[in-house]
């Protein structure tokens, strides 16, 4: 076996120790299978569980973050705040006002946005920054009328900051411009519109424009499907009466989880409102963290259980082999040699368990990963039986831990073996 050959090369162990350990493992009447099995189950569980949790989280994060940018830079909150959150309203504590008042008069905009986009793009880790003009209004078709959030974007740029291309279920998002619009499937339903239908979009600023539906999307979020309206940037600028300015810069980092760092860096050079998806979805991230801790605890427990299993079988094994140990000692084997023999056996069990567990775990992951549920999606992709995202690093980590577990759980049995009194061992043979 490779590990054994390597160990021999290092001169840490010699041929004799390897040979005895190897023979013991091969002719142990089921103990080897048992201990290797115990380790393999641990490894299998770690690989499978990690892949599962990862798959779930990747899917969830995709669902949550895929349709929003990692970092948003805004002129100010374009959504009006409820009155009780407004400054200078402190004396009014008794009055509970829940109705959200629109404050279209307080229009905020970013004028120097081209320079700003360039600067942001130069921050390390930033993939791209795209301008957009966002405002509210409503969409109508015939007598039907629904509230709308109007996003004015350059479709090519927008696709660089949001990984939502797969979410357009019909039509072509890149076609949106002055005359073409993309709406959610829910809105299309509500308006009775379809690809090619004409709808009217009216901004809160009172500008109405007619568009042709060029694309339909399903963002996986109810709100978005109901109210989001994508139009060309200049169309939105006109409707929101902001001239050549914009309201929002959407930023995408190369790494999803560098959003906070990027946001902080942007804050250093602008007083605009900057928010990262991680800040806005703290509760969600906390849930993920809790999930990770739970998984870690389960995995640790499993590996601990494997370790105890291996250790107890090994101790029984040492007792069974005590006569042999006495003989080896009478033939001149030192305590160190005896200890190495049993440590090697632990190592062998660890390596065997790691290989077996990794193989089965990986196999299971791939089977599950390729069992698709027809017609369902998760994380913007066709849904599988269970969402799985197998990664070689789980196999590496689990295997490494298994080898350490095998080695560590053999320490006490090996020490016992080495301390065995040869006379006792032979007497009670």
């Amino acid at each position, binding site marked *: 076996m490779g590990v054994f050959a390597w160990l021999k090369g290092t001169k840490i162990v010699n041929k*004799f120790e390897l040979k005895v350990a190897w023979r013991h493992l091969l002719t142990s009447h089921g103990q080897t299978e048992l201990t290797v099995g115990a380790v393999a189950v641990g490894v299998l569980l770690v690989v499978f569980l990690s892949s599962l949790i990862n798959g779930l989280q990747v899917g969830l994060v995709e669902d949550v973050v895929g349709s929003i940018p990692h970092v948003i830079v805004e002129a100010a909150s374009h959504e009006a705040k409820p009155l009780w959150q407004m400054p200078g309203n402190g004396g009014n504590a008794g009055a509970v006002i829940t109705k959200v008042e629109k404050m279209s008069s307080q229009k905020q905009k970013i004028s120097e946005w081209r320079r700003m986009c360039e600067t942001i793009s130069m921050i390390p880790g930033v993939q791209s920054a795209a301008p957009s003009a966002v405002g509210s209004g409503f969409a109508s078709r015939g007598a039907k009328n629904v509230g709308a959030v109007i996003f004015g974007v350059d479709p090519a740029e927008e696709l660089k900051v949001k990984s939502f291309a797969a979410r357009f279920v019909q039509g072509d998002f890149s076609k949106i411009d002055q005359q073409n619009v993309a709406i959610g499937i829910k809105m299309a339903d509500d308006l009775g519109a379809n690809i090619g239908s004409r709808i009217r979009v009216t901004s809160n600023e009172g500008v109405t424009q007619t568009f042709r539906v060029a694309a339909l999307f399903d963002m996986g979020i109810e709100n978005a499907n109901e109210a989001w309206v994508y139009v060309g940037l200049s169309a939105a600028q006109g409707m929101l009466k902001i001239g050549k300015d914009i309201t929002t810069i959407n930023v995408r980092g190369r790494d999803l989880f560098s959003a906070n760092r990027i946001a902080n860096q942007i804050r250093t050079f602008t007083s605009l409102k900057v928010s990262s998806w991680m800040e806005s979805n703290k509760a969600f991230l906390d849930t993920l963290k809790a999930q990770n801790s739970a998984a870690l605890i389960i995995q640790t427990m499993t590996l601990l259980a494997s370790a105890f299993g291996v250790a107890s079988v090994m101790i029984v094994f040492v007792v069974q082999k005590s006569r042999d140990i006495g003989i080896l000692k009478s033939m001149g*084997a030192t305590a160190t040699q005896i200890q190495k023999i049993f440590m090697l056996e632990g190592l062998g069990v660890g390596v065997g368990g790691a290989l077996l567990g990794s193989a089965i775990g990986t196999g299971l992951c791939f089977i599950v990963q390729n069992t698709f549920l027809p017609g369902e999606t998760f994380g913007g992709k066709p849904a599988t039986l269970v969402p799985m995202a197998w990664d070689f690093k789980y196999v590496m980590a689990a295997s490494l831990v298994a080898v350490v577990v095998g080695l560590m759980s053999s320490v006490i049995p090996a020490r016992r073996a080495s301390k065995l009194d040869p006379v006792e061992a032979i007497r009670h043979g």
Partner: protein
Amino acid sequence: MDKRKMPVVKTVGISKRYGEGVGTWALRGVNFDVAPGEFVAIVGASGSGKSTLLNMIGALDQPTSGAVYINGQNTSYLDENALAALRGDTLGFIFQFHYLLNEFSILENALMPFSIRKGGPSRDDRQWVEELFCRVGLQDSMHCRPKQLSGGQQQRGAIVRALANRPKVVLADEPTGNLDSRNGAMVFDLLRELNTTFGTGFVLVTHDDRLAREAARIVAVEDGRIVANYCVEEVEREASQLRHSEK
């Protein structure tokens, strides 16, 4: 002292107590030595301390008081690893039960001392061990596992292993105790033969007085003491002289 005459093992007033306090005194001040190439039989009743003595000589156990010298070295000054080395180089062991390792063929068992001590047998070592197998009549069963052999064959395999490392003395605790009388006699004769052919010393514990009488020297142990220690030849010479003078 002449190196050749120096005892291979020598005990000076060794006592052994098992347990704490009063305990059991298994040995009480035993002086005993084995010259190179000697064939000694230790006899005595059950519980008299024969095995204990043999374990002391083999440095498998430490005496409560007194000293054991192996090859002129006081074993009480040696650490565990040095003792193991000394055992491996100087002594061979045969036990009542064959005590071969079941996972290995008897040839591998016999070559084990070389693996332990120097990483593997040389060509010479191999030849020597194969010759030993021929001597004990196991040349055709060398590659068998112990379980595939009869009790007598197993014990002969154990003898080969004990002799493999060319020890100066082989310590055997009732090597025939587990064999029927025919096989026992055969193993005993074999030991005698190996003693005369290769000059290997033997110290063997036996219950069988008939076999003991074949030894060159008989040591009788009783209650942890040596109560008789005589050369069979001398005794017979004296006996015959006695008979002559009676005439």
